[in-house]
């Protein structure tokens, strides 16, 4: 038996023993374990599942063991993912700490920062949010205005962020701040970390058209941030942000991303519309749209698989992350639109007897943001035309 085969056996046994049955059920949005100081577990099983994984470093299997990770090799990570999928195990923990800040710290953080912050993330103790966008700087992120004035032992942060995901539920924020007012747009920005309970921080949820409020406006009024809570050098914030944006785009574009949990479009359509006497979906125009969609979905899935192979072979994705982001988000908008179309009026009920009333419509409305958040489709196309196609200007 190879080492990998042995690892698979051990993993399988461990999962069998440690993954509670409740954690093998399909999960809704309310079942996500986000962790953090304010988090309330929805069940004892959820808590138990998090702790078991945290102990083993498997909330972040790829991170080094010394920072609370599993220290797994690439092939081992793949085996773990496969075995988790086999029993439909839920992810024990999801967070911006895992997705965003962790990778940034691993790349740009000091040894001390890594040892301090990463284990907290891995154990789900601190929930992070991301302070990037500002009211006047949406797609044009580099024009942000939030100031971080150097006061010797600390920066004094004043300004306003928008689209801060779950800022009202987060414990700490990683935040882009203009610390060098005399530098040009891109070079004057630093990457700061601070506690959301610091004096001067306040948040205000933004109500979306779906009725939900996953985002906040976040205000900083002379917030004191100790100087050692900067990641990387002063003025290096843009480099870190760009690194993370690329990372985020890969994630958003990839079809495994939580946003793109594939609803069962095909069976939903058959159920809502039925088949005609020749066994075809009894709505020829919608059927044709579904057909074109299915082909594109197969193309995108193949492309995600190919891109993974490309990265496994040691290549950097770089600007090509914009390609996945663009294709994946536009595809998902079509998916959600087809879904409510197939569901017909049933899916347009907003408040009704059934528990999931409005869910399809809310998912559909939510999907409209896919091609805006993490860089708009227009920004992606501009990046690709310059960086890959070498268009002038």
């Amino acid at each position, binding site marked *: 038996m190879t080492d990998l085969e042995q690892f698979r056996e051990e993993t399988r046994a461990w999962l069998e023993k440690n993954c509670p049955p409740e954690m093998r059920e399909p999960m809704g949005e309310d079942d996500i374990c986000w962790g953090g100081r304010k988090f309330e577990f929805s069940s004892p099983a959820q808590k138990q599942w998090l702790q078991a994984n945290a102990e083993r470093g498997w909330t972040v299997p790829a991170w080094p063991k010394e920072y609370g990770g599993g220290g797994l090799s690439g092939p081992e990570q793949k085996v773990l993912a496969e075995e988790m999928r086999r029993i439909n195990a839920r992810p024990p923990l999801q967070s911006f700490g895992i997705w965003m800040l962790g990778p940034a710290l691993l790349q740009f953080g000091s040894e001390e920062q890594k040892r301090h912050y990463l284990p907290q993330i891995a154990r789900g103790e601190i929930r992070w949010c991301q302070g990037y966008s500002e009211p006047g700087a949406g797609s044009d992120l580099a024009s942000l205005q939030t100031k971080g004035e150097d006061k010797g032992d600390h920066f004094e942060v004043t300004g306003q962020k928008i689209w801060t995901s779950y800022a009202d539920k987060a414990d700490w924020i990683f935040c882009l701040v203009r610390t060098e007012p005399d530098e040009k747009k891109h070079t004057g920005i630093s990457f700061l970390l601070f506690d959301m309970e610091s004096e001067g921080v306040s948040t205000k949820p933004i109500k979306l058209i779906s009725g939900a409020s996953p985002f906040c406006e976040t205000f900083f009024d002379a917030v004191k941030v100790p100087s050692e809570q900067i990641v990387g050098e002063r003025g290096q914030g843009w480099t870190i942000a760009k690194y993370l944006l690329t990372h985020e785009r890969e994630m958003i574009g990839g079809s495994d991303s939580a946003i793109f949990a594939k609803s069962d479009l095909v069976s939903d359509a058959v159920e809502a519309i039925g088949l005609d006497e020749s066994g075809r979906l009894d709505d020829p*125009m919608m059927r044709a749209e579904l057909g074109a969609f299915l082909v594109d979905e197969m193309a995108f899935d193949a492309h995600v698989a190919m891109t993974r192979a490309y990265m496994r072979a040691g290549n950097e994705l770089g600007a090509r992350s914009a390609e996945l982001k663009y294709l994946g988000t536009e595809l998902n908008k079509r998916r959600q639109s087809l879904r409510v179309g197939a*569901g*017909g009026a049933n899916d347009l*009920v907003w408040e009704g007897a059934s528990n999931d009333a409005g869910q399809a*419509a809310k998912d559909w409305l939510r999907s409209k943001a896919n091609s*805006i958040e993490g860089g708009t489709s227009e920004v992606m196309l501009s990046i690709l035309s310059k960086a890959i196609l070498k268009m002038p200007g």
Partner: protein
Amino acid sequence: MEILNEDMGMVAESASGLLAKSHPITTFRALRDSGSTLGYDKAILGEMAEMGWMGIVLPEEVEGADFGFRAAGLIAEEMGKNLTAGPFISTAVLSATLLRHAGGEALAQWGPRIAGGEAVIALALEEGAKHRPKSIATTASKGADGFTLNGRKSFVVDGVEADRLIVVAKDGDSLVLALVDPQIAGVSVTSQVMLDHRNAAVVSLDDVKVPLESVIAEGESAEEALNAALQAGRAVAAAEQLGVAKAAAEQTFEYLRTRKQFGVLIGMFQTLQHRAADLYCELEQTSSLVAEALVALDQGREDADALTRAAKAKAARVGRQATEEGVQMHGGIGMTDEMDLGLFMKRDRALAEFLGDAGHHTEWLLRHRGL
């Protein structure tokens, strides 16, 4: 095809004036925030009646204005632009057209009440998630002294607190249109708030006994009356959707002219310019198609059926384009409840489904053309 004549120009102008003043989007927003399940403010009935709108397609004998469908479309378009909520299409277009074609006592009795804003009459047609007017499972069994109705109607627009329902049922192979008081035994009306914050009720009919005279049309004449009502409803709904699309587009164009990003007005970006211009072109030709469909109805032309379907299908496509481009071009702010775009997008989606989506009507056109 003619451009607007003086009379029609006046209808459009007065609708635009009244609605922008008395029923702008802020009114609808307040209605929604009040938690209204009815989906409209009952006071609007009187106002619309006073303007002659509730009787716009009814003959003068029953106190209608007899102004025709083009006029009804112009009003609906303005309602779309202002997101004005009121039982206009359900009562003043669908039910009024149906009653006009059915004629007789029902028209004489209910025509004046509709025109006077005293009665809301909803069409209880749909039975499933998609518009399938040929598949009616609700039964109307004829007995000695009346009919017995059984069935379940879903998505009865403005059916909550309606004064009467026109129930579409089948007596064997024969279509039956019955005017039913929702208060009588066996009828139960359940409210459903839709994503556009309007209401579409579920109506259950369990051994509902109605007298013979409740049936306002049967067989071929019922088919004809329902068909006329649906043609009218489609064309006027298309006009409302066109209004929604135009308003969403206009707000977006204005945003492009005024919002700065990357140091310039975003309307400077050629991509957005071209997409905006394409949307404008589509709105223009949809406008013409909707007008043509309404005029064909007014002229009783044979191609009205095909034109109203094409208009409904096209309005759905351009409505989607306008609202999707609106959100995308606004960026994140377009996703917030604070902006009107989300309200336009939701109303657009509901209208797209109402009385048949683009695919449904395109399918009919394909069949009609022998494809």
